């Protein structure tokens, strides 16, 4: 295996495939293409500009914004100089940047637009070392005159002269950057405490990106749509590391609102999304089908039944009778094909989901309509790739087999340990945290509890630290895996989020967030009037609907003898959506169980105290930083639980 760096990969593509497209961005209604040679040229000028501005080898530079070609080019430019780009989440509040910026002594930032510039200016007091800020989109910024603030155009302009004067300067810089040099730093969102900077080298990011590309036969012909935050390592691997390794085309959507339209226009061949995106797509399809005419609805349900029966088997290359094959082909012609096209997934060759567990129904829906959806397992610390599902072995409840070069073992406590070329170098300026997760022998503690099943696939249950025990009651000492329970609930389309409590308690209770779209549509069809989210959430009819879901989940849990005690005995439906702006979710949309338990302490007490309703007032933060109050009298409902002995038959 040849070790390389990102800038070297760029120069290779620019030399070998100068006129092939590297990046596309939709602007003014047209897809504008940047070829590899144009990109290399841009990176060269940016690098020269940055060097003149004083960016040194080993220094950090923050990059904030959505996926934009010039921001990707800025990352490459920084790496060419041996500096370290630090992408941060573009939707975070200014205060959330303070820690990473001070931790990494950031003096330079390249940001997308006015919104981000405002945040950077706000940070001047808390981060006095921040000297220079450049912005990509000048809209609304014409009248800003702040010291150190300039447009990316100005930076490129200042680099242009330098590049033409000193031929070979750039190549020299690229040569000096070594595969073992730090390539980028990603801050983990962190469910507790300050975020930690995960340090990756060019080698750790490229090695497994290449292994993954070989695993799925990725070539330079792939099309990818980059629409998730670039600060998330998943998006970074798919639209940066693997982009440079394979040399395929990365497409940037016009705006956040046009992603679905752009997806359809591009028709990506390689697609990656967390389960929530796949779920959102399916929900929108289902809602539209419910509103369709009777004939269309009948056809859809009829053919989807056939698809569910034969689709996944066909995809796995199993044996299917001639009659079923013919029916599936007919369905493909009238339903599955057009549906794939509507979703923008008709050209997808390989699609991955990761980050969270995916519901079995959701997973098999996509495989049934002929989309090769698979799962993979990994984290920021492992540069994503740990386990992947091979083409014919996709299962909803496992995450696949270890990638080439990855070693895996499970400790007696159930924790998964990993040894891999893609492991982080360490946490930035945090030796204590590094030592906690990296053993001297090179094993990384994932913090995930799981086991390897009979077919060699890894199955994840929950975070090790979250796995608790019930105390007292009928199931004293039984294992309680909150996420496992929550996921069972979230797999229902009407439930958006769930938070389960049960550690050191005698039974399990849960908070539930309804899915406003799905439940709202359901209410409309039932002629149930409602005034808004809070009102809808507290309707007795909605409680009955949710109770039905909870009881189904309980029946499912009862069948599992390890987790039978985790059945939900009481629940309530929350009056507001859990939100990252209120600190209830992480930026990657994971529930912060501890924080929620404290914030809504009265509700937890009411659940366990046997009350039938509880009044609560909650402060909510709006997107623009203002706050407001949401108050409601929440109903609390009991749910039926099942005894464990149901394994007859």
């Amino acid at each position: 295996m040849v070790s390389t760096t990102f800038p070297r990969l760029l120069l290779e593509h620019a030399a070998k495939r100068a006129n092939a497209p590297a990046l596309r961005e939709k602007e003014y209604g047209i897809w504008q293409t940047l070829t590899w040679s144009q990109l290399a040229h841009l990176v060269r000028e940016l690098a020269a500009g940055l060097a003149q501005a004083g960016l040194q080898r080993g220094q950090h530079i923050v990059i904030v914004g959505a996926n934009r070609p010039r921001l990707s080019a800025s990352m490459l430019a920084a790496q060419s100089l041996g500096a370290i780009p630090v992408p941060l989440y573009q939707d975070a509040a200014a205060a959330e940047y303070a820690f990473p910026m001070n931790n990494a002594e950031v003096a330079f930032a390249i940001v997308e637009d006015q919104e981000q510039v405002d945040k950077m200016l706000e940070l001047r007091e808390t981060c006095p070392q921040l000297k220079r800020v450049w912005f990509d989109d000048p809209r609304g910024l014409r009248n800003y005159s702040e010291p150190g603030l300039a447009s990316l155009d100005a930076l490129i302009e200042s680099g242009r002269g330098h590049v033409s004067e000193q031929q070979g300067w750039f190549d020299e810089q690229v040569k000096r950057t070594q595969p073992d040099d730090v390539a980028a730093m990603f801050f983990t969102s962190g469910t507790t405490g300050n975020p930690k900077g995960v340090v990756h080298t060019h080698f750790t990011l490229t090695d497994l990106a290449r292994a993954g590309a070989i695993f799925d036969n990725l070539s330079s012909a792939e099309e990818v749509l980059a629409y998730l935050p670039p600060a998330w390592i998943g998006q970074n691997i798919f639209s940066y590391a693997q982009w440079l390794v394979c040399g395929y085309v990365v497409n940037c959507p016009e705006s956040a609102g046009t992603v679905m339209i752009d997806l359809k226009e591009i028709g990506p061949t390689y697609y990656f999304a967390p389960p929530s995106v796949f779920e959102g797509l399916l929900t929108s399809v289902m809602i539209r089908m419910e509103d369709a005419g009777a004939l269309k609805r009948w056809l859809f349900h009829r053919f989807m039944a056939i698809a569910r029966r034969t689709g996944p088997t066909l995809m796995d290359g199993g044996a299917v009778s001639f009659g079923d094959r013919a029916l599936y082909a007919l369905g493909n012609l009238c339903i599955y094909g057009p549906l794939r096209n509507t979703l923008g997934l008709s050209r997808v060759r390989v699609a991955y989901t990761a980050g969270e567990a995916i519901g079995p129904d959701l997973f098999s829906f996509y495989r049934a309509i002929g989309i090769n959806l698979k799962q993979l397992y990994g984290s920021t610390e492992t540069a994503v790739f740990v386990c992947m599902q091979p083409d014919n072995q996709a299962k909803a409840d496992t995450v696949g087999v270890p990638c080439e070069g990855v070693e895996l073992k499970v400790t007696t406590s159930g924790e998964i340990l990993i040894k891999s070329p893609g492991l982080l170098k360490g946490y930035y300026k945090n030796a204590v945290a590094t030592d906690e997760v990296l053993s001297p022998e090179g094993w990384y503690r994932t913090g995930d509890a799981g086991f390897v099943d009979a077919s060699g696939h890894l199955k994840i249950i929950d975070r090790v630290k979250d796995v608790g025990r019930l105390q007292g009651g009928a199931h004293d000492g039984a294992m309680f895996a909150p996420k496992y329970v929550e996921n069972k609930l979230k797999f229902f389309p009407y439930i958006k989020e769930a938070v389960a409590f049960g550690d050191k308690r005698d039974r399990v209770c849960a908070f539930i967030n309804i899915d406003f779209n799905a439940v709202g549509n359901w209410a409309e069809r039932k002629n149930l009037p409602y005034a808004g989210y809070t009102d809808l959430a507290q309707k007795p009819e909605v409680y009955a609907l949710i109770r039905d879901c909870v009881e189904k989940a309980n029946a499912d849990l009862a069948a599992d003898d390890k987790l039978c005690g985790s059945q939900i005995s009481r629940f309530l439906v929350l009056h507001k959506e859990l939100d990252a702006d209120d600190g209830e979710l992480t930026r990657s949309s994971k529930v912060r169980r501890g924080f929620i338990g404290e914030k809504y302490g009265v509700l937890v007490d009411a659940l366990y105290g046997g009350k039938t309703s509880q009044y609560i007032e909650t402060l909510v933060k709006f997107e623009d930083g203002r706050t407001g109050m949401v108050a409601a009298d929440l109903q609390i409902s009991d749910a039926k639980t099942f005894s464990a002995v149901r394994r007859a038959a």
Partner: protein
Amino acid sequence: MSTRQIGDVMLDVANISLAFGGVKALTDISFNVREHEIRAIIGPNGAGKSSMLNCINGVYQPQQGAITFRGQTFTHMNSRQVAEMGFARTFQNLALFKGMSVLDNIMTGRNLRMKSNLFLQAIRFGPAEREEIKNREAVERIIDFLEIQPYRKTPVGRMPYGLQKRVDLGRALAMEPKVLLLDEPMAGMNVEEKQDMCRFILDVNDEFGTTIVLIEHDMGVVMDISDRVVVLDYGKKIGDGTPAEVRNNEDVIRAYLGTTH
């Protein structure tokens, strides 16, 4: 905050009177508008604000008075001529083509700039195609400016009201006007939509240097964004000046807070 320069008087309205039979809509109204400024016309319901706007852009012909635009004096304006001179307007109750897409609606604003004949346009040949591409480019810049990319192909009738108002503004902007007449741009909007609209109006004024004459009911908005304000009541001018001056004007306070007749 702004670097724009307010220039000389570009539009002068002198002694305008308009009556519909015995109903006097406007009586002896005079005011002027300077280059690059945001000029508001306010007043209670039925004060004659929309009539005033309609006189400026030639929908109504006033019985008395004259309008001077950049040195040329007119006793009555003709709407096509007004449009060619660089006036564009939006409507209080949205005069959009509901069944047409956002793109097509804004494209109609380019009508005056399309010179090729109907036949060439129908077969999309040569000059007609080039013209279409050039105008589409201008429309795309407006779509980008107003941040309505997700709705490009959406029929306007299916969009929420606040966004329709934005399309209405987009169509007026497509004319690349020197003067933009806005008839209650914020009517019927929620707070967030109003904020967005204010930002767009200020951006238009700032970025393109367009002079803006607007009618508005929301006093907060008017006082925040306009440079000078004219106040009408029962077809008569009762106040004229900066927002601060108007706010302290006795007649204006009386007209808004009510008085016995």
